[in-house]
């Protein structure tokens, strides 16, 4: 297997997957949060009967629809790319990974697509109450869709609830609860959807700020901002809370990711938070330790400790892990040889099978299975710079949004918002910042866990579909052109609809 690894294939496959995922995440966060904002506006309309609320509902719904279409388009590719580009991965973990995807299809996608159609086309076909229910169910459906794929992603970061079956050469699930309530999955879900809420709130405030600057639709804009600012402030606080909880989880599940994100090469007690550069000079003492373990003096391992091992703190070095991984791979080979050699090997095959089933072998050897494919320990270090700076960008912007929402609310309450033109301009420019923060977050999560497709069990080099790199290169550029074209089309349509304004909702006729 090792001799056939083609790094250019792996890199193009990763590039294609990253391209699809990043484009997908351009469209998804707005879907997650805007639906709730719309549902709230429609609730106000149903309760008060004020046409202004209906106008708001319909306008934001139009923008939602434009955005949603491309989200769907990029989503289908993402689902199938697990098969087309990561087929070995799909078999190795399909028994666990496939289930959330299927549940997502049955429970969430149909809910979303049915009720979205009522939301858009049902205004004159169902009662006000049913329509409102459909809007809320669309919001719930969209977020449920996110739940299952993030459970799957959380599992890749922290595989749990399964054991390896040498007979089928794959991992098999034994506890659905462990998969669903995997701490990484819970954090990931809450953190991702709340980031979507924040982005949506920034989006609504930014677009409304543009109207205020132009002196158009001022009542509409102020009301929209009021809804979005409250929603945004609550979401951004929750976002910080879930981010903090995610950090403490990865310190135990993915210490290498944490070390890379902190730029921490040599672990210590009371590790400081680097401000400017990884391993650099300017640091705030104790903060990294605090983030990791809620204690300013706690020990946090660095990249070198994780590679070389640190018996004092119970950290196994990479060499040892690689050795143990190779043992697991060798035993699997032994099993396959024994099984193939007719009757004589049966007893031996059974014995090895029992060995794989034992807790000790799973804990001491199979747990490091993926390391067995790695020759150079340096390969275990993710790109430190990219992870480090993305982490800072994400966290920094996260705190900025809290302040931004608080100020928006303050100015709104003091009725000075319309006058503060600089702040309104800042609000418009905050929209791209929200997108950047989300992308940076995914870079930390996914680049930070390289080289793993499944943490500790399967490196991307083994997970990849064996195909010539040129094919993947071709589809990469094909998708790049298509997605970029669709993005440009989407932005132009979106800008035009915003210019046309809420009175011309829909804008086609």
């Amino acid at each position, binding site marked *: 297997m090792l001799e056939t690894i083609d790094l250019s294939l792996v890199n193009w496959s990763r590039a294609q997957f990253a391209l699809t995922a990043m484009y997908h995440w351009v469209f998804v966060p707005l879907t997650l949060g805007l639906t709730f904002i719309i549902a709230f506006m429609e609730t106000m309309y149903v309760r008060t009967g004020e046409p202004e609320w209906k106008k708001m509902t*319909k306008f934001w*719904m*139009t923008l939602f*629809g*434009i955005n*949603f*279409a*491309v989200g*769907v*388009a*990029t989503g*289908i*590719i993402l689902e*199938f790319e*697990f*098969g*087309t580009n*990561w*087929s*070995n991965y*799909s078999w190795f973990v*399909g*028994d666990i990974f*496939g*289930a959330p*995807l*299927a*549940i997502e*299809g*049955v*429970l969430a*996608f*149909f809910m979303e*697509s*049915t009720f979205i*159609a*009522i939301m*858009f*086309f049902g205004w004159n*076909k*169902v009662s006000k109450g049913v329509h409102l229910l459909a809007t809320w169910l669309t919001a719930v459906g969209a977020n449920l869709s996110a739940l299952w794929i993030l459970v799957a992603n959380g599992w890749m970061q922290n595989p749990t609830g399964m054991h390896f*079956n040498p007979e089928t*050469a794959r991992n*098999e*699930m*034994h506890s659905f609860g462990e998969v669903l309530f995997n701490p990484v999955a819970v954090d990931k879900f809450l953190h991702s959807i709340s980031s979507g809420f924040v982005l949506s709130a920034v989006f609504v405030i930014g677009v409304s700020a543009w109207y205020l600057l132009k002196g158009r639709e001022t009542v509409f804009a102020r009301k929209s901002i009021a809804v979005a600012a409250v929603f945004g402030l609550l979401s951004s606080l929750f976002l910080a809370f879930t981010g903090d909880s995610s950090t403490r989880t990865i310190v135990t599940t993915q210490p290498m990711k944490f070390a890379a994100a902190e730029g921490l090469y040599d672990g210590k007690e009371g590790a400081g938070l680097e401000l400017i550069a990884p391993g650099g000079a300017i640091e705030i003492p104790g903060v990294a330790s605090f983030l990791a373990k809620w204690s300013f003096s706690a020990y946090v391992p660095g990249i070198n400790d994780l590679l070389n091992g640190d018996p004092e703190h119970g950290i196994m070095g990479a060499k040892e892990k690689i050795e143990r991984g190779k043992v697991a791979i060798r035993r699997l080979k032994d099993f396959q040889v024994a099984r193939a050699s007719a009757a004589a090997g049966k007893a031996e095959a059974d014995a090895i099978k029992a060995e794989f089933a034992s807790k000790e072998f799973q804990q001491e050897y199979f747990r490091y299975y993926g390391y067995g494919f790695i020759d150079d320990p340096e390969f275990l270090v993710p790109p430190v710079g990219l992870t480090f700076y993305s982490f800072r960008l994400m966290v920094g912007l996260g705190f900025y949004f809290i302040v931004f929402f608080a100020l928006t609310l303050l100015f709104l309450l003091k009725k000075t918002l319309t006058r503060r033109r600089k702040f309104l301009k800042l609000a418009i420019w905050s929209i791209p910042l929200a997108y950047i923060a989300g992308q940076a977050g995914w870079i930390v999560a996914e680049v930070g866990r390289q080289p793993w497709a499944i943490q500790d069990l399967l490196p991307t080099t083994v997970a990849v579909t*064996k195909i010539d790199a040129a*094919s993947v290169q071709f589809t990469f550029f094909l998708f790049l052109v*298509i997605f970029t*074209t669709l993005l440009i*089309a*989407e932005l*132009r*349509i979106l*800008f035009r*609809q915003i210019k046309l304004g809420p009175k011309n*909702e*829909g*804008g*086609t006729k």
Partner: protein
Amino acid sequence: MFGSYEFLQHYWWIIVSLLGALFVFLTFVQGGQTLLYQVARTDTERDLVVNVLGRKWEFTFTTLVTFGGAFFAAFPLFYSTSFGGAYWVWLSVLLFFVIQAVAYEFRRKPANLLGARTYEMFLLLNGALGTILIGVAVGTFFNGAMFKLDEMNHVIWQTNLRGLEAALDFKRDAVNHELIPDNIHNIALGLAIFFLARILGALYFINTVDDDEIERRSRKQVLYNAVPFLIFFLFFVIRLMLIEGFAVNDSGGIENEPYKYWHNLVQMPLVALLFTAGVTGVLWGIGITWLRNSDKGIWFAGTGTILVVFSVFLLAGFNNTAFYPSRFDLQSSLTLQKAASSKFTLTTMSYVSLAIPFVLAYIWWFWKVMTRDKITTEEIEDDPHAY
């Protein structure tokens, strides 16, 4: 509650088959898209047709996604083998579905970059190539594909066309050194589905659109497309009954069995009954549209389509048959048993599957509400969210 492992494997094959069957029925959206310029001549008519389809396209799309997801979850070895192996087929299918997803929403919006005609071309491409390619891909369930699995069950595909050989390669068979005739069989299935989708699309217009001209043209299209559909469908079915199939023997090995699918049909009378009822339904739907001027044809032809496709999937997987055979390495062929998820996973998902009737119920309710009255040009003009 769900019984033996073997039962679960069959249960999930039924679910996957049902999703496949529902998907083919829902390709009336794709078929309708290919009729865009034939049943609608003016811009107003085209807007009407696009909007009538636009209220349903997401169901087709979602069913396809769920079909893929269910296959991944229940038969991951198929997912990893076919998607990773037949790379070009599946990526082409995806490509033609990506362009559909934006076409409805963007077509009539101002500043849409590419212009309405381009988005209409996207709809045509999706309608034509989406259906044909999926048909060809399903054809490989009977005619086999060119792969081998290694000891880790990782797929090694044997052609550079990565799946497209099922439609494009007419060279000699790598193993038997015969000309590969079965590509014609795969293509026939693709074309049968294509023409069936067009028939269903026309029947859907007749049922849903309140416009005399569009209805008149749709009736003509039902007839025009019925002829090629019947030719390709009959060719596919007759040949299917005659070819050598891929049977699982008592020791779990795979061997060729002459007339395997004919045997399956005879040995599973219930499937034969479903199949016959389905064919009758499709013909009945076409017949009453043509002879009695009915607008209910879609219900018969639609139900018939579901039954036919469902029974064809059962022919492929039930009765000790390899549902995804390898033409290159017989023993690598996928059977329900070999490709299935573990018993635990299948059981867990089976509990989730109990929600399916509930999902179908609310979709049914939605459908009734949204199509209570036929859709008119006026309604589209008044609709702020019209496509």
